[in-house]
């Protein structure tokens, strides 16, 4: 039974490794990301839009909330702060700044904070803001300084620091050059310590002129193409959320590799995971008395002597063909090593050679790392242009990490796409599609059926066109994860019941029926005979159930111990059925918790084999 435990544990390990592969990579990441929302609380921010549009302040709060909740799910270890400037009241750690209101100090976001931000939304939210903070003088310099203090008060190592200014005023100090200067100084101080400052400028009558003041405040855009500053101010919540999200997620390469085109021609590239399956987070163990988290320590020790075993005291083993094969831990790693990490260009193939069903893993994204090898971006760009022009993909061999076996991948060119609001929808680069090996295909024996007639096909086409919709990859929330967090939220905030989660991947049957009208029946009349009911179970299955049913449902099945031994000897245990094996386990006194056949067999072999 020890083996089974080992089995399950190792399975976990494997999963962890996998995770690591997807998010960690060779590139070492230490420290946490941090994000400060610095929000203008001046009167202008509270002016309602036309036709009952939400005020800029309201929009900002909604955007902040969505970042909070998404961070809680995706990366709750990140630190966030919410600071208002241009307030009447002041509240900051040492109360040394006037008109700066630190609503949330730099910390991990939690349920309380989401509620706090909720309270600031809508009309009531505006009132609450007016009561607690009010609108007053503006000194962006002080506000920035206050934020700088928030950063420096953090004892943790911060890996990425970002500050977003939400405002609709392009001249916050009304032309006061001293204050302007102070703000600039403070902004450059912040930038010097590695804080990236972004401007989320909002709509104001007459347009928002970035060049008057904010040009000097924000960090220069990374690509120097000034794409960042040409942006029109936001006037829609969706746009704002999109912009915030685009900036808020720190791109992090899961690996930095060389793309080797040939001897001495290495392009530095980064691998980015753009889609990673979000899972429900694992449970943590708490001490019953205090609800404080406990740590777990795992020790490996010798069963007989009880002494702790060092890594050098253990080896690894596998059993094949009744023989245990033992290897050193190092050897186990060495077996997996084929070459150093990197991408090796094998050749090019036309796009139609990339088959839809050659899918074994989510794709990753490839982008040049000009900072590692100068000239990479240019060569990469040339390769991208030509591959996309000629409609070919590059076939490469990919070793993503040390001691990882190689996989073949297709580098599929992707051109940059920008929406009307000049926000990037798809970035320029290669999508890396992992290709299957021969072992990854399963042999199927496809059943043969007559094909449908054109009338039948045409009817289905009518159905299809009635139920058309525009698919968007970000339109479906995971109901399992959402429910989990709603539950936690309810418990954390002592709510009576968790908020309802709409299951977005549930078919809207009623609507569908309505839209289809008589079509569904018409189609059925075309393909099914009148006495056919697809809902019933296949007849064959029924029969076995009928004949097998009754009193003699479970015939006693037994094998003698001698027979068992013979089976063990000949390695033919597999021929016995699970009930027989279970019975046999009882017979020879093996206690099993397993239900899988192999587990039962292993247990019996362990007992009878030697």
């Amino acid at each position, binding site marked *: 039974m020890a083996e089974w435990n080992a089995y399950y544990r190792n399975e976990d390990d494997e999963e962890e490794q996998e995770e690591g592969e997807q998010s960690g990579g060779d590139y070492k990441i230490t420290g946490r990301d941090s994000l400060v929302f610095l929000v203008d609380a001046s009167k202008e921010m509270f002016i309602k839009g036309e036709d009952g549009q939400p005020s800029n302040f309201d929009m900002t709060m909604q955007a902040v909330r969505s970042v909070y909740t998404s961070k809680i799910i995706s990366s709750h270890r990140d630190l966030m702060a919410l600071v208002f400037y241009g307030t009447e009241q002041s509240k900051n750690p040492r109360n040394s700044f006037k008109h700066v209101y630190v609503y949330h100090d730099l910390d991990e976001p939690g349920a309380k904070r989401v509620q706090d931000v909720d309270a600031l939304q809508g009309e009531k939210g505006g009132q609450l803001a007016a009561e607690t903070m009010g609108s007053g003088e503006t000194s962006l310099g002080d506000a920035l300084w206050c934020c700088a203090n928030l950063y420096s008060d953090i004892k943790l190592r911060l890996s990425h620091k970002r500050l977003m200014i939400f405002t609709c005023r392009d001249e916050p100090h009304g032309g006061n050059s001293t204050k302007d200067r102070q703000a600039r100084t403070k902004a450059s101080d912040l930038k010097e310590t590695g804080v990236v400052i972004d401007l989320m400028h909002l709509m104001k009558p007459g347009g928002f002129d970035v060049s008057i003041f904010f040009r000097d405040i924000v960090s220069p855009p990374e690509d120097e193409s000034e794409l960042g500053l040409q942006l029109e101010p936001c006037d829609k919540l969706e746009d704002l959320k999109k912009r915030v999200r685009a900036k808020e997620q720190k791109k992090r390469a899961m690996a930095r590799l060389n793309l080797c085109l040939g001897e001495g021609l290495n392009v530095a590239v980064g691998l980015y995971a753009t889609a990673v399956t979000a899972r429900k987070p694992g449970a943590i163990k708490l001490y019953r008395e205090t609800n404080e988290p406990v740590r777990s320590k795992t020790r490996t020790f010798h069963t007989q002597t009880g002494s702790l075993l060092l890594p050098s005291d253990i080896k690894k083993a596998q059993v094949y063909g009744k023989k245990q094969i033992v290897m050193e831990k190092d050897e186990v790693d060495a077996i997996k090593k084929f070459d150093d990490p990197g991408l090796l260009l094998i050749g090019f193939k036309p796009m139609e050679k990339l088959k839809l069903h050659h899918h074994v893993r989510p794709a990753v994204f490839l982008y040049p790392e000009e900072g590692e090898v100068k000239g990479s971006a240019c060569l990469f760009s040339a390769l991208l242009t*030509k591959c996309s022009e000629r409609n070919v993909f590059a076939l490469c061999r990919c070793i993503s990490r040390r001691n990882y076996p190689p996989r073949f991948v297709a580098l599929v060119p992707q051109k940059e796409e920008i929406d009307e609001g000049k926000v990037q929808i798809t970035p320029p680069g290669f999508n890396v599609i992992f290709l299957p090996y021969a072992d990854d295909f399963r042999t199927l024996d496809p059943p043969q059926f007559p094909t449908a007639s054109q009338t039948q096909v045409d009817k289905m086409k009518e159905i299809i066109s009635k139920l058309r919709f525009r698919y968007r990859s970000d339109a479906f929330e995971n109901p399992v994860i959402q429910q989990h967090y709603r539950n936690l939220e309810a418990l954390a905030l002592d709510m009576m019941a968790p908020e309802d989660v709409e299951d977005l991947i549930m078919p809207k049957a009623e609507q569908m029926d309505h839209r289809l009208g008589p079509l569904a029946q018409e189609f059925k009349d075309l393909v099914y005979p009148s006495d056919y009911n697809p809902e019933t179970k296949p007849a064959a299955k029924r029969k076995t159930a009928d004949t097998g049913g009754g009193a003699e449902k479970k015939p006693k099945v037994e094998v003698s111990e001698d027979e068992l031994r013979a089976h063990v000897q000949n390695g033919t245990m597999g021929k016995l059925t699970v009930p027989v094996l279970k019975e046999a386990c009882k017979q020879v006194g093996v206690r099993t918790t397993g239900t899988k056949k192999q587990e039962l067999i292993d247990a019996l072999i362990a007992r009878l084999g030697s």
Partner: protein
Amino acid sequence: MKSGKRFLSALVLCMDVGFSMSNSGPGEEPPFELAKKVIQKFVQRQVFAETKDELALVLFGTEDTKNPLALDRQYQHITIHRHLMVADFELLEEIENQIHPESQQADWLDALVVCMDLLQKETKGKKYDRLNIALLTDLNAQSSSDHLDVIIENLKRAGITLQFFLPFPVKDDEEGGGNGGRRSPGHPGTGKGLSMEQKDSVDMMKHIMLTLDEEDGLDQIHTFRNAIEQLRMFKGIERRPMAWPCQLTIGSSLSIRIVGFKAVTEEKLKKIWATVDAQTAQKEDVKRETVYCLDDDNETEVQKDDTIQGFLYGSDIVPFSKVDQDQMKYTHDGKCFAVLGFAKENTVRRHQFMGNQVIKIFAARGDEHAGVALSAVIRALDECKMVAIVRYAYDRRSNPQIGAAFPCIKRDYECLMYVQLPFTEDLRQFTFPSLENNKKFTPSETQLSAVDSLIDSMMLVEEDENGEKRDMLKVHHIPNPAFQRHFQCLHHRAVCPGTPLPPMESWLKAALERPEVISERCQAPLEEMKKKFPLTQVEKKKKLKTSAQIFGKDSEVPDAKKAKGDDEEEEEEYNLADIAEGSVTSVGSVNPDRDFCTLIKRKSLPFGEVCQQLTHRIEQLLGNKNTHYYMKSITCIQAFREQSVKQGNAELYNSYLQSLKRSIPNRGLEVFWDLLVQDAITLISKDEVDGSFVSKNEANQFLVAEEKKEETTAPPAEDTGDFDDLLDMM
């Protein structure tokens, strides 16, 4: 596909070890060795694939005779080496060590009869799907064709199939050399021609094979070489596809009975490494134990029973018992393949495929009506270039997914292919700088044409003379190299214990490289690329900015700017520390006190120099005339004082503070001085540091007395109390 039923086969390997098997031309491997390799490779595959198939080994041409038919000097020199059972390492070791060329010859037809007898006896009462005999021989022994027809009749009746493995190809003499079906030319043994016995035997063999299977009988006659080549790969672990019966639903009234099969999935090795004790190699000797402890200084251990389950909601810890969790968790109706709607195929992007499998959906087996209905869906989707967006749930316990079902129409079947798609939570919408709008990265025309010719030279798919496209490298035909290497090493360790692991097999290595044609063809274009695209490794040095750059931006920073004038060069060396990165190299402007302490501690710079850097910063801060900057200055002075005391060096601090005090009135820093007085930051006295020239009393008076004096007396003589002087003093 009889799903759920076990496919079991029984196989007798029947190998000729007689003396003629050792004959070989100069420089050629004797047939015996080749035949042994075939057997070895085959058994290896069986062992690692962990098939339940059973096999037996019969040798003929042995000195001894060991078979149940050996009576009356019949069936001599035939030995049943191993009875029908699952292959294991024992057998591999025996093949390695116990099978040698021997000096007798035996009739291969006799051997065949022994094998048939063995199969019949040992498979009695059990059910097998396939009975097979593989004969490895050079057909050199004389054999009598007397009972040939009886033998064939028996083979047919028992349903036993036959395979021949020979040192030479047989089709050749019929169809003339260069047979397309056989890959490697020049088999050893063909050169010297066949003996009379061999020719007779070949005829008999052909007769048998063609009688058993008129059309393809001869396809089961192989050469040793080909067999080795085909067997060199370890066979993948074969998994029987599991049928997943379900209903495809469109709305509430339209449903089609379907069945799904995993078609493509990332296969992993089933076995995992167990941990064993290094000495005894017993896994029972190793035990792992997990204990829980509080996060306090004593790491107080806590019983597992005293722990409860909780979750993190951001920073909140929420106790959440398993029972509650199960009660509140998302539940659904189980197994499901429900269409949400239909979308244009091109809106589902290939790179957004999630999960690690592709499921093929067919109509339920034997249900023709379902077949027609599904065919209508598949064809309609195909003609509209649409896909179905579906909700998929494997069963009640598993989480539901969203995915796309693509139509797939093949020559001999139709199906839907289901692939998982992302949830909102899975997506990370990164933006990357544009490559096109950036002039620095825009490739020139000549650069682009260099890439063009590289692509030309490296195209893996080409049209041959018949206008047919040929793919040089089908990666999906390559076996997973990780498995191959894994088994190679395991096998080596099992049969040659105590020796280091072998190098990777050369064919495997070659399979992971560029095809040779390509690497030759791309040489010139690559050289051209190298010339056209200069690539330089960026030296890994942290980018540091000088204070001059920073303060240069703001022309109105008083004093600090002026201070620069003279010692411009020196300034350049004072790099502003990037504290956040933990690499303090000088006293920066953000946290000067912390930097100062760090630098002192690190002792990488002389004490005097660090102090000078600090005072430089203090002067800059004071130049701003703002309370916040004053506070910061004070913490700097405090740090200066503390460190000076620690270092036992009072001189620098004292003289700085004294000169600072003198400059107060001139610079209008009275407010600052008041703060300093409030905090009682004074000179360092003798009591604190031996070398100080200031008494305790003097130190105490330093703040108080001057304060009074200030009110009455005029400012001291040093009216040029600029901090340039202060710096000079140090």
